[in-house]
């Protein structure tokens, strides 16, 4: 192969790479595009057109209905009440599980005691169990505590089964903070709480962001706990969305389904687009390393 031939074939290679990457990107974007255009069409247009056609006379009818009057089973108040339910579940559950994870991680990384490593191992294994194996007894416990079918009950469940991951995140982060720092502070007379407040907390901002985003996404997107432990009126948005799609009072309205799906996805999508860097960090940290 002479020089020009080689350059030409390298060029073709580059073009091929770009073409494939862009084509795949379009494929990944297609479902979102289809959801958006479908949500803006009326049912007539959906039936006569196809998935990719742009809406001729875009309307927000489906969005309005999905938000405030679509039926999610026997009630027909749209997704709005369930959106607030999810928020009422997510905020305390994320705050508390993140805080507990932080002090747990602090102990596991810098205040190890006899047996703490075994405890951490046991906790780590707890990250991976299929939740099916705790569903029945947890339902019993919630009933005993009088928290069955309540928002508080769901908050509690999310805290309990979120701690393993939040602890893992903070422990792996704090392990990178030099122990000499802790020892020096101890010599100066600082204790457990003071060292945490004055040294670790100020250094923790990035890992707090990663953990909060991770927990927010996990809990907002949860369906299993939501469907098992909520009752009518306390369901999170994922459960309501599933009910909405499967309730067909007078004909299927695909535009409403799509608007509802986007509403349910919006909070986590926004977080992803504005703080994607941290989301990816959590994803790879949570998934790969122990």
């Amino acid at each position, binding site marked *: 192969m002479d020089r020009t031939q080689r350059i030409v074939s390298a060029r073709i290679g580059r073009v091929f790479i770009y073409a494939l990457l*862009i084509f795949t990107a379009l494929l990944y974007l297609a479902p979102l595009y289809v959801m958006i255009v479908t949500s803006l069409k009326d049912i007539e247009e959906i039936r006569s057109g196809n998935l990719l056609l742009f809406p001729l006379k875009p309307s927000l009818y489906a969005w309005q209905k999905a938000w405030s009057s679509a039926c999610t089973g026997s009630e027909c108040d749209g997704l709005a009440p369930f959106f607030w339910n999810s928020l009422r579940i997510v905020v305390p559950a994320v705050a508390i599980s993140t805080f507990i994870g932080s002090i747990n991680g602090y102990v596991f990384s810098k205040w190890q005691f006899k047996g703490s490593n075994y405890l951490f191992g046991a906790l780590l294994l707890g990250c991976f169990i299929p939740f099916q194996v705790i569903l029945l007894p947890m339902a019993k416990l919630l009933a005993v505590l009088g928290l069955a079918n309540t928002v508080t009950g769901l908050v509690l469940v999310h805290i309990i089964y979120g701690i393993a991951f939040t602890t893992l995140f903070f422990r792996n982060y704090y392990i990178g903070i030099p122990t000499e720092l802790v020892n020096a502070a101890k010599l100066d007379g600082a204790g457990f709480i003071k060292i945490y407040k004055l040294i670790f907390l100020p250094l923790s901002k990035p890992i707090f962001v990663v953990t909060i985003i991770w927990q927010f996404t996990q809990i907002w997107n949860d369906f299993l706990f939501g469907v098992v432990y909520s009752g009518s009126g306390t369901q999170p948005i994922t459960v309501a969305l599933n009910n909405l799609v499967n309730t067909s009072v007078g004909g299927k309205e695909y535009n409403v389904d799509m608007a509802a799906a986007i509403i349910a996805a919006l909070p*986590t999508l926004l977080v*992803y687009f504005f703080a994607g860097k941290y989301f990816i960090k959590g994803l790879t940290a949570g998934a790969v390393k122990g």
Partner: protein
Amino acid sequence: MKSALQQLLPKLVLAPTTLILVVCVYGFIGWTALLSFTKSRMMPQWDFIGLDQYIKLFDNPRWMVALENLGAFCFFFILISLLLGVVLAIFLDQKIRSEGALRTIYLYPMAVSFIVTGTAWKWILNPGLGIEKLIREIGFQSFEFRWLIDSEMAIYTIVIAAVWQSSGFVMAIFLAGLRGVDESLINAAEIDGAPHYKIYTRVVLPILRPVFFSAIVILLHIAIKSFDLVQSLTGGGPGYSSDMPANFMYTHAFNRAQMGLGAASAMVMLFGILAVIVPYLYSELREKNG
């Protein structure tokens, strides 16, 4: 006095987590295990009948379908996600302009709930109005795509949606892996005149074997826990043809008053996950310790 408190504090901090771990993780697993040896139906009751529920489980055609589906799902979901993820990662690693934007696009489905994914794909794959209509309008009049209502093929619609959601994640961990490969190795191979693709198949990918290993374990873990996507995309149907073990467990434990059977199926899922996770964690921890 003060130092005694200092000694105690770390343990005190971990006490709630330890309690949760003992009761709500390992205690509950024990409770479910016990339940699986009883003939509990609506309510837990403690008449022990040995392994009868497990025998019943593996005689149950619905459970066997769920296991077969899990097998097919694992195979195709993992294979396609890995192929796509690796190819995208390698192509993105060729000093691509706007790599960041492309990465963001490949990964955004990961931020969305499986219920949203299921709702979107249920519409896209709609027999009659979805992809089928689109392809017909392009000119292929007799094109048919009705996997959603085909009991042989419904499980593969779940593969499609799951690949869309998770392959970007595989891309992300492989890209991180590729960035960690020592460049001098690649340069040396280039000087030897090896063609570009061979550098990858002979040099780079073998170095990334641990990343393959991690990715497979994580995808397997996602697959065994699959519940939401099935629930929202096919509802396990037509009939129970696209059920998976997690859906079987939910249906029998919570809708059909077959608590003992549900508990037995949860235990089988747990052992499935442990068979994957324990060797993985063991090898990860051993690697780190020496």
